[in-house]
C-alpha cells in the first residue's frame, strides 16, 4: 500500500504539489488523472524518490520512503515513462537484464528472467537481440514494461507510458497491462490525461487539478455516475 | 609592460600586417565555403567533406612550405601564408556552413518556394538569414584559430605578430613573447566579440538561448 500524507513540493516560488494526501491500495490499478500542472508526475516521482517532498511524507507499507536508501528503493520499484529511455547501445534483452545484473544477479539468471518478462509483455523472442531503434513505439513501450518488471517489484509506477503510441496499439497495451497486473498481483500507480484510458484501466481513479488538489476520488463507476463538480464532469467528458 | 611601451610603434606595425594576413583569408574563405556549402551537389558532399577534413588536419607550417611546390609561390613570404590560411578557413567553414543550412527548417523553405520565390531569392531572403546564427558561430571559431595560426607565418618570413615570438626567443626577451601572445589574444577576442555583435544585429528576431550544445 502506498500512502501520500500532505505531500508538498515547491521549486522556489513554483508550487508543483500542494498538500496531497491519498491512499493507493495494494494489488490494484490507481490512476492519477489531470491536465498539465496538476502535479501528477511530481506525486508519482515521490514514490521512488526521484523527487523529494518539501514537506509531508510518502509511505510504502507503512514505512516512510525518506528512511530508505534511494538506490535500493528504486530497484524494488518498477518505473515506466513516456519516453521509455531504453539504452540505444544495448539489445532488448540486455536492456531488460541490465539492472538485475547490476543488482548482483548472475548473468544467466538475469537473462532467464528477462526472457520470461519479455514473453509476458508479448515480445517475440526473435526481437530479443534487436536494438531499440529497430522496434516500433508500441514494442519499445512493452520492453520498457518488461524492464520495469525485471526486478520482480510489487509496485509499478507508470507516467503517461502510452502517450506516444497510436490509439489502436494503445488500447492493446491497456488490456495487456490489466492482464499482467492480475497475473502478478501488482500495485500500479498510473498517470494519464487521457479520459478513455483512465476509465478503462482504473480500479481507483483520482482526479487532480492545480498542484495536486483532489477534485474527486473513487471507482470509475462512482465518478461517472456522480461527478462531484464541473471540473470532473468536463475532464471525464460527461 | 615596459617593453611594450618602448616598442609600441613596432608592435602596431606588426599588428597591421597580422590583420591584413588574417582578414583576406577570412573573407575569401568564408564566401567560398558558404557558397560551396549551398551549391555543391549532395552526392559530392561526402568526398568533399572527407577531402577538406584531410586538409584541415595538415599542420600549418607544413602547408606553408608545401604550397610553393604545388603552385609555384615563394617559400618565404606572405602569399603562401594567405593562401594556406584561406584553405583552412574554407575547410572549417564548409562544415559549419553545411550544418547551419541544414538547420533551416525545410517547412520554411518549402513554403517560401510554394509562395513563388526563385532559387536566388530563396537563398538571399530565407536560407542565408536563417543560417546566420550557425554561420556566425562557425566564423567565430575559425576567426580565433586563424588569428593565432597566422603567427606561425613568422617562421616563413612574414612580419606579423608571430615575429615577436621568434625575435623574442632568439634574443631571450620574455616580455616580447608575452606581448605577442597578448596582442594575438586581444585581436582574436576583438574578432570574436565583433562577430557576435554582427550576429545580434543581423538576427533581431532571436531570443538569447542557452549556450548548451
Amino acid at each position, binding site marked *: 500500500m502506498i500512502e501520500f500524507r500532505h505531500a508538498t513540493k515547491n521549486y522556489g516560488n513554483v508550487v508543483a504539489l500542494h498538500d496531497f494526501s491519498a491512499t493507493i491500495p495494494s494489488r490494484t490499478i490507481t490512476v492519477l488523472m489531470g491536465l498539465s500542472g496538476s502535479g501528477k508526475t511530481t506525486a508519482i516521482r515521490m514514490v521512488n524518490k526521484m523527487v523529494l517532498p518539501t514537506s509531508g511524507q510518502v509511505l510504502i507499507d507503512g514505512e516512510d520512503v525518506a528512511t530508505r536508501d534511494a538506490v535500493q528503493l528504486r530497484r524494488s520499484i518498477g518505473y515506466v515513462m513516456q519516453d521509455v529511455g531504453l539504452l540505444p547501445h544495448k539489445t532488448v534483452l540486455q536492456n531488460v537484464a541490465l539492472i538485475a545484473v547490476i543488482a548482483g544477479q548472475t548473468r544467466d539468471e538475469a537473462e532467464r528472467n528477462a526472457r520470461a518478462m519479455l514473453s509476458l509483455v508479448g515480445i517475440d523472442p526473435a526481437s530479443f537481440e534487436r536494438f531499440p531503434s529497430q522496434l516500433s513505439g508500441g514494442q519499445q513501450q512493452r520492453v520498457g514494461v518488461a524492464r520495469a518488471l525485471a526486478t520482480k517489484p510489487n509496485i509499478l509506477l507508470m507516467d503517461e507510458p502510452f502517450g506516444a503510441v497510436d490509439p489502436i496499439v494503445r488500447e492493446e497495451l491497456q488490456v495487456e497491462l490489466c492482464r499482467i497486473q492480475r497475473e502478478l498481483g501488482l500495485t500500479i500507480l498510473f498517470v494519464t490525461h487521457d479520459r478513455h484510458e483512465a476509465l478503462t484501466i482504473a480500479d481507483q481513479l483520482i482526479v487532480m487539478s492545480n498542484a495536486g488538489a483532489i477534485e474527486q476520488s473513487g471507482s470509475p463507476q462512482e465518478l461517472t455516475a456522480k461527478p462531484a463538480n464541473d471540473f470532473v464532469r468536463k475532464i471525464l467528458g460527461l | 609592460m615596459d617593453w611594450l611601451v618602448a616598442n609600441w610603434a613596432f608592435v602596431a606595425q606588426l599588428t597591421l600586417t597580422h590583420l591584413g594576413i588574417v582578414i583576406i583569408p577570412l573573407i575569401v574563405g568564408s564566401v567560398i565555403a558558404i557558397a560551396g556549402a549551398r551549391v555543391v551537389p549532395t552526392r559530392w558532399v561526402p568526398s568533399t567533406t572527407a577531402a577538406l577534413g584531410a586538409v584541415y588536419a595538415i599542420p600549418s607550417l*607544413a602547408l606553408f612550405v608545401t604550397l610553393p611546390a604545388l603552385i609555384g609561390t615563394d617559400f618565404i613570404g606572405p602569399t603562401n601564408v594567405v593562401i594556406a590560411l584561406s584553405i583552412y578557413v574554407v575547410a572549417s567553414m564548409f562544415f559549419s556552413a553545411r550544418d547551419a543550412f541544414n538547420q533551416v527548417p525545410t517547412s520554411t523553405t518549402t513554403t517560401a518556394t510554394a509562395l513563388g520565390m526563385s532559387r536566388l531569392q530563396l537563398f538571399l531572403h530565407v536560407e542565408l538569414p536563417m543560417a546566420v546564427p550557425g554561420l556566425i558561430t562557425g566564423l567565430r571559431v575559425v576567426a580565433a584559430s586563424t588569428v593565432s595560426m597566422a603567427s606561425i607565418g613568422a617562421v616563413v618570413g612574414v612580419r606579423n605578430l608571430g615575429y615577436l615570438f621568434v625575435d623574442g626567443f632568439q634574443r631571450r626577451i620574455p616580455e616580447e613573447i608575452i606581448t605577442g601572445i597578448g596582442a594575438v589574444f586581444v585581436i582574436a577576442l576583438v574578432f570574436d566579440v565583433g562577430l557576435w555583435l554582427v550576429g545580434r544585429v543581423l538576427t533581431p528576431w532571436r531570443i538569447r538561448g542557452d549556450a548548451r550544445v
Partner: protein
Amino acid sequence: MFDFAELAAWFADSTNWDGRYGLWFLLAEHLVLSLGAILLAAVVALPLGTLIGHTGKGEFAVIGLGSVSRAVPTMGLLFALVLLFGVEQRDLSLILALTAIAIPPLLAGTFSGISTIPWSIRDSATAQGMTGLQRIRHVELPLATPSIVGGFRIAFIHVVSTVVLAPLVGLGGLGFGIVQGLTVRNYAQVLASSLVIIATTVIGDQLLGWVQRRTGSRLVEHQTTEKS
C-alpha cells in the same frame, strides 16, 4: 617550378633516413612526444569532462576554456614556456605546452558527448536504481565514446602541429627538416619533411576517424517511432 627530381633524390638518399636526424628517428620522436602528451592530457581531461557532463556543473568553464584556447598562439606559448623554465628544461616545457593544448578538445569532446545524451535515458537509468558510477559506466561513457574519440582526433591534429615547431626551440621531431632546410635553403629537405608530416597527420586523422565511426555504429541512434 619546383624540381621534383631533386625531391625524389632526397628521399632516395639513405643518409636522410638514418641516424639521430634521419626521418625514421624524427618520426618516432614526433609520435612519441605527441601521443605521450595526449595521454597525459587525457588523464586530466577525461575524468574532468565526465564529472562536468555527469553533474551538469561547470559547463561554462568547458565552453570558456574552448574559446580561450583557440585564441592562444601555440608558438608563443611554447617559446614563452621554454624561456620561463630555462632552456635546459625545454623538453618539460614542450610536454607542458602540448598537454595544455590537448586538454581543451578532449574536455570538450567528453563533456559534449555526455551532456547530449537525452535526458530520458539518463533519468530512466536513475529511476531503475543505478548509482551515479553505474550510470557513468553503463550509460554515459559508452554513449559518449564517439564524441570522445572526436576529441582525440582534434587533440591529435593540434598536438602534432605544435611538435612541428619543436625544432625552433632546439628539440627534435619531423619539423627539423623544415626548419633546417629553410635555414640552409635546402628546399628538397623542406618539402620532403613536410610531406612526411602531412602523411603522418592525415593518416593518423583518418585512422581516428575510422575508430570514431566504428564506435558510433555500435550505438544505434535513439529514435522513437510511432508506427505499431
